[in-house]
């Protein structure tokens, strides 16, 4: 695999032009354009934009934040429409939404906005202290554990990428090495990338242990009722369960070491994604 990586990296020399195109794409943050599907937008509908590059049969979204956002919308019964687009959102992130013609980025800020707009609050039954704990876990999972996926998917199990992204193999030769290098830079900046593989595994394992320990036998993360933590927890671990190869450390953590997480994800999937097979199976 190392020689394959080296070969792919040498192709990077020729990927400069593609890289520049990618830079143009990231600059293309579209404040005022309609979705690329071209249809007239219903002003009261939430349009969730993603790149739609996921291979059929996997997950509704390859980013845990996409899973999180769509699960949240289903939990609070806010109707949404999936919209495939190449454009990155106003913050250069995906997923992003358009609502009443306005684009918005960052799943957390989007959720806060929609909470206010639609008068919903998944945490209404929680005490202040429980909300605090919920926030701590959400932040741990989103700011730390999340990067474990970055490392596993783009560095450690690089060869598995072709199974995840529905991109023609010719393009893969250009896109994957560039994206992988970008993720590596981000990992280094964030801090996790400075550790050895073993150390990263240890860090992520502790996070997953903490989540599993706190979840215990509860039906939802915080207790008997679903709360705002559930989209994050489910969104993240869905990626662990269904987008990693069997030899991956993340797969083993959720499938073997901490089975209560797998059971939790299956429950969430059944409850909020009864149309899962339809959603992941069809080509969008």
């Amino acid at each position, binding site marked *: 695999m190392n020689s394959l990586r080296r070969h792919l990296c040498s192709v990077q020399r020729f990927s400069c032009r593609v890289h520049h195109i990618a830079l143009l794409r990231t600059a293309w943050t579209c404040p005022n354009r309609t979705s690329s599907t071209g249809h007239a937008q219903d002003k009261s509908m939430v349009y969730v934009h993603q790149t739609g590059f996921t291979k059929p049969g996997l997950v509704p979204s390859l980013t845990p934040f996409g899973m999180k956002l769509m699960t949240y919308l289903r939990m609070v019964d806010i109707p949404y429409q999936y919209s495939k687009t190449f454009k990155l959102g106003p*913050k*250069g*992130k995906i997923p992003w939404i358009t609502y009443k013609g306005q684009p918005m*980025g*960052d799943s*957390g*800020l989007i959720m806060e906005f929609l909470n206010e707009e639609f008068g919903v609050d998944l945490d209404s039954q929680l005490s*202040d*202290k429980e*909300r*605090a*704990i919920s*926030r*701590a*876990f959400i*932040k*741990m999972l989103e*700011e*730390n554990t999340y990067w474990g996926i970055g490392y596993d998917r783009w560095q450690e199990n690089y060869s598995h990428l072709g199974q995840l992204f529905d991109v023609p193999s010719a393009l893969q030769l250009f896109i994957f090495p560039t994206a992988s290098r970008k993720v590596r*830079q*981000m990992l280094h*900046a*964030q*801090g996790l990338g*400075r*550790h050895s593989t073993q*150390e990263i595994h240890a*860090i992520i394992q*502790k*996070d997953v*242990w*903490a*989540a599993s*320990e*706190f979840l*215990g036998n509860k039906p939802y993360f915080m207790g008997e009722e679903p709360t705002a933590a559930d989209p994050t927890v489910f969104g993240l671990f869905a990626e662990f369960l269904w987008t990693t190869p069997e030899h991956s450390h993340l797969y083993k953590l959720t499938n073997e070491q901490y089975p209560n997480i797998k059971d939790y994800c299956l429950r969430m999937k059944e409850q909020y994604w009864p149309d899962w097979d339809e959603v992941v199976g069809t080509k969008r």
Partner: protein
Amino acid sequence: VYYHAPPPVKAIPCLTPFGMKLETYLRMADIPYEPMYGRSMGPKGKIPWIEYNGEAMGDSGFIMEFLNREKGVDLNQTLSDADKAVGRAFTKMVEENTYWYEGYQLQYCKLHVDNFDQLQDLFELPWAVMFFLRSVRGKIRQTMWGHGLGRHSKDEQEGIIEKDLRAISSFLGTKPYLMGDEPTEVDAAVFGQLSELCWANHDSYLHRIVTVDCPNLQAYCSRIKDRYWSDWDQLTKKTKKDQ
């Protein structure tokens, strides 16, 4: 244990929250150490770092785990597993989310001309370093962009960090320490981050949150400072500037 970190300044014994965290932990665990102040980076390009038995180690989290094993220390021994899990969640929140506020500060506030004097005064940085910091601002911005927090506007970032602080305050409540009556590992981490906000950021919006809006946070920081940092004043007075 030879503890390597930047030297104390007038504002605070250590400018990096991870230094405050590690040193507080060493004091909580009664592990004798010798401070070796300097600006050299450790094995992972991070500070603080330690040398133990001739071996250099980086990353405060790993260092603490190593010393726990080596010295047979466990600050979390009175906690249930579920409480340990909550402790980890809070530790990671302050270290991976709230911590980036420092990057935001450097990016937006501190390197503006009107704050230069205050910054230089607090941190006792020579003019050359200030000049260098200015030029490094672009790199910091890039780092924050990559992390994600840097993509938000200043107000959004403040909002995010404010929620973190309020969450810590809610969870702490009237307890003396985060998990109960005795300090545990998460207190070292949270104190590490909050101490910077309490004592090294006087005019900022978040300083107001920690002192005025959530006074239990300031009380908590003072409590830990009084218990484990009785030599705080000595350390911060005896700095290069005064010598």
